[in-house]
């Protein structure tokens, strides 16, 4: 109950950051793409704040229907496709100011930064059952904001401005993970996974353990790359390949399944479909190559890890 209420309030806060961006963009007359960009962030404000707003007081019926949200998502996609979502101007401090205040504040500036992780950890440990990790993140963000204001003696308006600057810099990419999850749902409803699993099971020679291990591990990686999500792949590929071609041949189910899932993670490292791990960070870290900037570094490691998964599964599970 409390968990649902707090989680929903957290989404309202996310929505408010989007709303701040919207208002600011509408006001800035020299914005390169004023109205479409404002519309983009306004839709996100609506979706985050109101889609399940009734959960705040425990009435799940007060919500925006999923169909309406679906159409809103399509509008977001169209705005993004037409390249109408752009970044405006921001008041950022100068390098000189940053260096000077870094010296003035000293190492105390790390306290609010570290509190993000530490407070999230403590809250998650103490109230794990009641609250879950999301609330822990939200509580940590709140504590870090207060500490940041206290130690820097900065203004609240600067803080909100900075938050929306980072958000607009990340831009439409910030919603990519959600859109991909939605695609995964459509794929699942359409039965794409079962089709692939049955197709792959035709290529494995019966009674060959090594072939089973290789196809299971690479199937997990490949299917994860397509879906962008190892969890979705695991159920399908383990039922379709892991059980009949590896476990049924005498493989220890504990070892086979544990390694099977992490073999899928090797695929996660190689796919732009896993946007929250591979694409969003390019925006967060301001990497120029938005598509492959992270992935190209991960591919060699992912391939080595995948090969090691096959070796370990073959030697350890049998």
């Amino acid at each position, binding site marked *: 109950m409390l968990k649902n209420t707090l989680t929903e309030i957290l989404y309202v806060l996310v929505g408010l950051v989007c709303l701040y961006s919207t208002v600011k963009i509408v006001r800035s007359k020299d914005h390169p793409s004023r109205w479409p960009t404002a519309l983009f962030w306004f839709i996100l404000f609506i*979706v985050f704040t109101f889609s399940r707003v009734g959960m705040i007081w425990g009435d799940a019926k007060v919500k925006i229907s999923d169909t309406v*949200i679906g159409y*809103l*998502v*399509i509008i977001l*996609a*169209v705005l993004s*496709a037409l*390249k109408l979502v752009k970044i405006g101007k921001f008041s*950022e401090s100068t*390098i000189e100011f940053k260096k000077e*205040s870094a*010296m003035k*504040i*000293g190492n105390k500036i790390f306290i609010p*930064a570290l509190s993000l*992780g530490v407070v*999230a*950890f403590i809250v998650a440990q103490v109230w794990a059952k009641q609250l879950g990790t999301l609330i*822990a*993140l939200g509580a940590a963000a709140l504590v870090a904001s207060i500490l*940041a204001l206290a130690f*820097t003696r900065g203004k609240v308006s600067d803080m909100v401005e*900075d*938050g*929306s600057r*980072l*958000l607009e810099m990340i831009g439409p990419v910030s*919603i*990519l993970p*959600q*859109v991909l*999850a*939605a*695609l*995964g*749902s459509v*794929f699942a*409803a*359409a039965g794409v996974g079962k089709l*692939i699993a049955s197709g792959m099971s035709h290529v494995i020679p019966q009674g060959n353990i090594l072939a089973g291990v290789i196809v299971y591990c690479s199937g997990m990686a490949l299917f994860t790359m*397509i879906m962008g999500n190892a969890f979705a792949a*695991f159920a399908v590929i383990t039922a379709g390949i892991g059980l009949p071609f590896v476990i049924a041949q005498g493989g220890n189910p*504990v*070892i086979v399944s*544990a390694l099977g*899932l*992490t073999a899928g993670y090797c695929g996660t*490292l190689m796919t*732009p479909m896993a946007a929250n791990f591979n694409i969003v960070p*390019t925006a967060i*870290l301001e990497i*120029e*190559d938005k*598509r492959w*900037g992270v992935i190209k*570094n991960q591919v060699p*490691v992912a391939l080595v*890890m995948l090969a090691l998964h096959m070796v*370990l599964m073959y030697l350890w599970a049998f």
Partner: protein
Amino acid sequence: MIKLIGILIIVVGFVLKLDTIAVVVGAGLITGLVSGMSWNDIVTILGKAFVENRYMTIFIVSLPAIGLLERYGLRERAAYLISRIRSATAGRITSLYLVIRTISAVFSVRLGGHVQFIRPLILPMSMGAAENRYGQLEKKDEEKIKGLNAASDNYANFFGQNGFVAAGGVLLIVGVLKELKITVEAVDIATASLPMAGIILVVGTAQFLLNDRRLAKKYQIRQNEKKE
């Protein structure tokens, strides 16, 4: 077979560098249509999944604090601090982060994240260490350090998290195997996940230190040339 058209659209879209969000939504709509789902159902599934996965975008709430700290020189301070440690290199810092992040993931401590740790702390430290050694870096090498930084968080997160008994992945495995009429204990799955957590530390560290060596070679030669 026609159902696979969505995957084809994604691949072609990525290769042609079309707008990613539009490609993904388009692939979903077309896959649904060719599979015989009604337009209304598809849009509803799309909207439902979007709302239910709002948690993926929750990192937005921590942006204001990080933004304000950056305004007051957080990254400059991190770079300054690291520049006083002579033995620090980009690769060593990234490796140390990989180790700490993996171990804390095994204990289900979410002490990490691209927004929470890499951008405000680890990246400025890595950059600071590299610039301290080699002076101004080429754009290409900066991009490489950023990419490896981002990768280190993913390595630790992916291969460390299943070492924890109540991790989402572990519970998923137990649940899926139960559906397949095989009973396994969560604690055994977590134990069987530990070797890979150890292996990624070795493989990841090797990658980060190799990049150190490459940088050292490249910029040392350059410095020698300047002297001659």
